[in-house]
């Protein structure tokens, strides 16, 4: 179900009303959020903000760690287990690799909630629920929308070679677009170079009429490349930033796929808090979807301010 700009306000409202439920309990517990996002990644930063905000609400201590290397992520989980936290929030981009550590956590009677990816394995590994949906689903949504815009040849810009999540987004788009999808590798830490690479691709292959970026900063680079190169390609992106919202308003970017990842931080902390203090479980173990939402010219103005604050 596609939430849009209004979803955020709803979430905020519901949390403030949830406060009386357990807010008075002085120590709300300690929860560890461990994701596969690299530190400084704009997507995961919003998740972190959401989790920390929820922790603030409930008087709980929330720690956030992220590492794209599954081995490191597993070690971080092991560490949290030896610290005997009250709950774990884990993004399972590579369920196979985390299996051992998650099982260990469950065996130690630590409630686990999986977020973002790993919905299929969540229950099997003993997590109490899953929040968010896979990158693949989000990618499908983007592909569909691009097809509707008449894109037949799409450039999917990967900013971290070998990252499972990014690959899944492109796969999803490929599945629903119907046309050709080509991939391009750029480096997210050198955006000027990314600009000229995208431009080079557009110059070299003029039949490309759509570009899908998977990161808001790369989206801005792609926007410049399209403008500089005088290309007619339509641009869409994953995730938001102030610049992306500006560009959507200016019509330079068609839409941004918005997973509302703030919820992927906020909700699991809420659930864990409720589980700890009230033994609540949500949805009977079925996944709780947070998106995908789409930010388009229509709702961009409202979202713009929220993106500034790091909650969208």
């Amino acid at each position, binding site marked *: 179900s596609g939430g849009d700009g209004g979803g955020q306000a709803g979430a905020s409202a519901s949390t403030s009303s949830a406060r009386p439920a357990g807010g008075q309990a002085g120590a709300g517990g300690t929860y560890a959020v461990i994701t596969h996002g690299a*530190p400084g990644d704009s997507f995961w930063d919003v998740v972190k903000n959401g989790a920390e905000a929820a922790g603030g609400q409930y008087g709980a201590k929330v720690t956030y760690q992220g590492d794209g290397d599954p081995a490191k992520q597993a070690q971080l989980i092991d560490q949290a287990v030896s610290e005997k936290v009250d709950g774990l929030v884990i993004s399972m981009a590579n369920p196979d690799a985390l299996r051992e550590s998650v099982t260990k956590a469950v065996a130690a009677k630590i409630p686990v909630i999986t977020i973002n990816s790993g919905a299929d394995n969540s229950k099997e590994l003993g997590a109490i629920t899953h929040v968010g949906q896979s990158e693949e689903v989000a990618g499908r949504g983007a592909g569909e929308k691009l097809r509707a815009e008449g894109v037949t040849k799409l450039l999917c810009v990967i900013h971290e070679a070998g990252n499972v999540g990014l690959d899944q987004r492109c796969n999803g788009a490929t599945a629903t677009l119907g046309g050709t999808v080509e*991939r391009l590798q750029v480096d997210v830490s*050198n955006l*000027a170079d990314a600009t000229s690479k995208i431009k080079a691709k557009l110059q*070299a292959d003029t039949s490309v009429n759509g570009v899908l970026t998977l990161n808001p900063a790369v989206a801005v680079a792609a926007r*410049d490349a399209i403008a*500089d190169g005088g290309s007619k390609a339509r641009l869409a992106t994953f995730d938001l930033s102030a610049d992306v919202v500006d560009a959507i308003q200016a019509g330079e970017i068609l839409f941004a796929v918005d997973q509302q990842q703030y919820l992927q931080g906020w909700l699991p902390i809420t659930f864990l808090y409720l589980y700890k203090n009230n033994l609540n479980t949500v949805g009977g173990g079925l996944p709780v979807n947070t998106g995908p939402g789409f930010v388009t010219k229509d709702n961009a103005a409202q979202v713009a301010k929220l993106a500034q604050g790091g909650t969208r």
Partner: protein
Amino acid sequence: MTSVPADERLAGAGVLRRLLVRPELGSVVGAVAVFAFFSSQSAVFRSADGVANWLDPASTLGIMAVAIALLMIGGEFDLSAGVLTGTTGLVMVTLATRFGWNVWLAMLAGLVPALAIGFLNGLLVVRTKLPSFIVTLGTFLMLQGLNLGITKAITGTVQVGGLRRADGYEGARAVLAGSVTVGGVDFRVAIFWWLAVTALATWVLMRTRAGNWIFAIGGDEQAARAVGVPAARVKIGLFMTTATAAWLVGSIMALRLSSVQANAGIGQEFIYIIAAVIGGCLLTGGYGSAVGASIGALIFGMADKGIVFAGWDADWFKFFLGGMLLLATLANSLVRRYAEEARR
């Protein structure tokens, strides 16, 4: 230039051979080979438009590679230079957008932390005698943390943007990040900055006392000290030069993109070193040239973009990039060896 009668113990060295002995002209061969190869693969690559395209990333890389080359000739590394471009950009954009400074002023303000960090790097290396690899690795990590931590603390997000709306943006952009139209094709101004930096660095290396000292401390620091070269001052100066180059590049990038991410520049430090080494700098110091580093940046830039122009599968991108680099340096070194058998 000099009219000394030739010594009978000197074999006749053709003009070609004499030219090839210069470290730069060795790497030119690599550059020509890469250019020829990709030109044959893609018509766009060799078109004016295409050239303008791959010259653009080569220019910012080149500015940094030249500074790093000076440092490497002086026998040191700087791993913090890449992140520092991000730091200076962040300072500039934050001051201009969150505190309403004029862009020019904000840019100048970015120079202050850059010089401070360069000075600190140099001082630590000189005082502790730890290898600069370790010292600048420390500042590299610490700067990464600072970039992220401070940006988050001030803005709540991992990037700052909106420079476009700040005072003086247009002027600064025209000077540092604009384009110049030559024959209907837009070339980035950064290309001219790159040429200027290369020329300046070459002049310093070849025609000033400081240049002589840089070669000397990189070649044998003890011996240089023994004849009175102020090694500590030269080293600190080199680190500050690198920091200044990082500031220039950071400002160019920030003006071009009008926003900066907290992780900007991470991982670039090695690309700078790579460009310098492709251009003939020795990792052990004491040998290299600014022009060589520039050509190294050019080779890297061409290979990097050429693969995209040639339309090869993105999954194999790195494979081709590695292969190209290896072949380019190999061509370069074969030529140099042919010409230079003399130098052990």
